[in-house]
């Protein structure tokens, strides 16, 4: 190294602070990895004695102290499916409006603001809304359908945001090319924009599944019950006007209200819930990484 570049006290100090800053920020980022891994591993280890296929496919018995989680697991699947059927179309079309049709005016600003606020409304307020609007006002009563509608409105912003992002990633030149061969707006959206962004939209939908599955507060007063026995192994055991159990609420109940439950039981329920959510999420991340690697523009 030439002599001009010999280290002075000032540059050494600079280099040191640089290292220090990098290390500190790195440590902070690392501190996010640690709790995630610790939590997952710890829960899994504690739950291990109970985890089996039977645990998933048998009803809770003996005041929820024994048996499995079948009725709660199936209830969660029902809630997620029905709410998805409502929120996915509305959310995707709303995103299409915001990205393809909306002009930069006060209405669009209002909609965007509404979406931001909808995302920020506390889940328990969504629960109050579901109770007031669907259960009482609309007269549906506490049921899978009321709970699912509540969940649908709650998760709408998630799907709008992710769909908007994937629509925006389709280059404008694709649209211009299509307009110039004489297609209308809707034809362009239907034939060019949606096919080119469908993967991103699906990723968002998958992500929404995981959000919906974990929610507790919104279903507590709109359709979920503490305990319900259903025929084991029958996937059509609930009807949409029934109340159902939900995995998330089951974890809450067993943790806080059931005394003398075996030590591993709440851990096993937590692992079932967390496992479902994380697997679905990993699926969404995997799809995204795979599709991004194939993207040609």
């Amino acid at each position: 190294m030439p002599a001009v570049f010999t280290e002075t006290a000032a540059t050494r100090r600079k280099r040191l602070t640089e290292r220090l800053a990098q290390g500190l920020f790195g440590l902070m980022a690392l501190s996010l990895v640690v709790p995630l891994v610790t939590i997952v591993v710890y829960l899994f280890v504690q739950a291990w004695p109970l985890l089996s296929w039977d645990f998933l496919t048998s009803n809770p018995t003996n005041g929820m102290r024994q048996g499995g989680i079948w009725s709660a697991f199936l209830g969660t699947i029902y809630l997620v499916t029905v709410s998805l059927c409502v929120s996915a179309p509305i959310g995707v079309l709303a995103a299409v409006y915001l990205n393809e049709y909306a002009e930069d005016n006060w209405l669009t600003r209002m909609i965007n603001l509404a979406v931001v606020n909808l995302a920020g409304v506390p889940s328990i307020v969504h629960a109050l809304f579901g109770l007031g609007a669907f259960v009482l006002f609309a007269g549906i009563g506490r049921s899978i359908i009321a709970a699912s509608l509540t969940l649908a409105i709650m998760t709408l912003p998630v799907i709008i945001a992710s769909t908007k992002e994937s629509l925006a990633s389709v280059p404008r030149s694709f649209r211009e090319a299509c307009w110039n061969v004489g297609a209308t707006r809707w034809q362009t959206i239907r034939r060019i924009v949606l096919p080119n962004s469908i993967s991103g939209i699906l990723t968002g939908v998958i992500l929404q599944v995981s959000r919906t599955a974990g929610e507790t507060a919104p279903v507590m007063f709109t359709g979920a019950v503490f305990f319900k026995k259903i025929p084991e192994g029958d996937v059509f055991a609930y009807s949409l006007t029934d109340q159902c159990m939900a995995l998330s609420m089951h974890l809450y109940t067993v943790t806080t209200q059931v005394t003398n439950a075996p030590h591993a039981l709440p851990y096993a329920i937590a692992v079932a819930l967390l496992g479902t959510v994380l697997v679905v999420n990993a699926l969404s991340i995997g799809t995204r990484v795979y599709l991004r690697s194939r993207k040609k523009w």
Partner: protein
Amino acid sequence: MTQTTVQLSPPPSAEGGAELVLSTRAKRRFAEIAAERAIEVLIYACGVSAILFVFGIFFFVFREGAPYVFGGDFKLGEFLFSTEWYPTSLGNPRYGVLSLIVGTFSVTALATFIAVPFGLGSAVFVSEFSGNKGRETLKIVIELLAAIPSVVWGFIGISVMNPVIQDVFHAPVGLNVLNGAVLLALMSVPIMVSIGEDALKAVPDSYREAALAMGATRWQMVYRVLIPAAKNGLLAAVLLGVGRAVGETMAVLMATGHAINIPHSVFDPVRTLTATIAAELGEASAGSPHYRVLFIIGILLFTITFIVNLTADLAIRGVRKR
């Protein structure tokens, strides 16, 4: 040279767009145009629905609480500034939510205090210091962290944090402000990281290049250039994290220990606004004053988060304008 029409803006909705460019093509059938028009109306309706839902939430929650507000017994001052929450007292029920507000405030404040350094620090690391691989990995970790349901956090609060706090701090109860705040911090960090990273990304690269060209180290660049330039977005990141913490229900319901009082230290148990609704709505008989007051608390929460989110949105908009 003949002029060709090139369309760089979308054609007007639901007309035979073809005619504008190629007059040789046949006119579209009426049914086709009508169907397209119908779809566009549907799209418009879905777009506007978000506004309706926000108003709907306010309306229906208020509708359940209103009869008590206008019933004559309700005094706003007493509701907001009395610490006496005795909703089930037989002769003299009192509905003062000050302790609940203080409970929410104390847990949120401590959570923010813990989360801000980690959240913004990680945002800086992800956006400025880490390589491509590290960034992708960290983003996945943060996404998974954000995916953990709040009831699972609450369970962790009870089963893991509770004994840890009792052992480490020799606290009489482990379900307290500190427990809830740590959980809320972990829950709001992912939001802070992702919004904070967006804010840092929005700073033009020319700023970075200018700083580095003048001999600044990366740290100096972050500290002197990026943070001042992105401060609005970073503020929004913090505010959205706070908004999430204020509205969080299950984790604080399970982990803060259910005592309605003004906390004197971080080891005191408290009860938050959200937890009160969740814990008591099931027991309050429909239509009773107690039941209606819980809906009024809902309106209070709605208002608080609305203001927080609005402020965050304005801060973000400030970033975009530049």
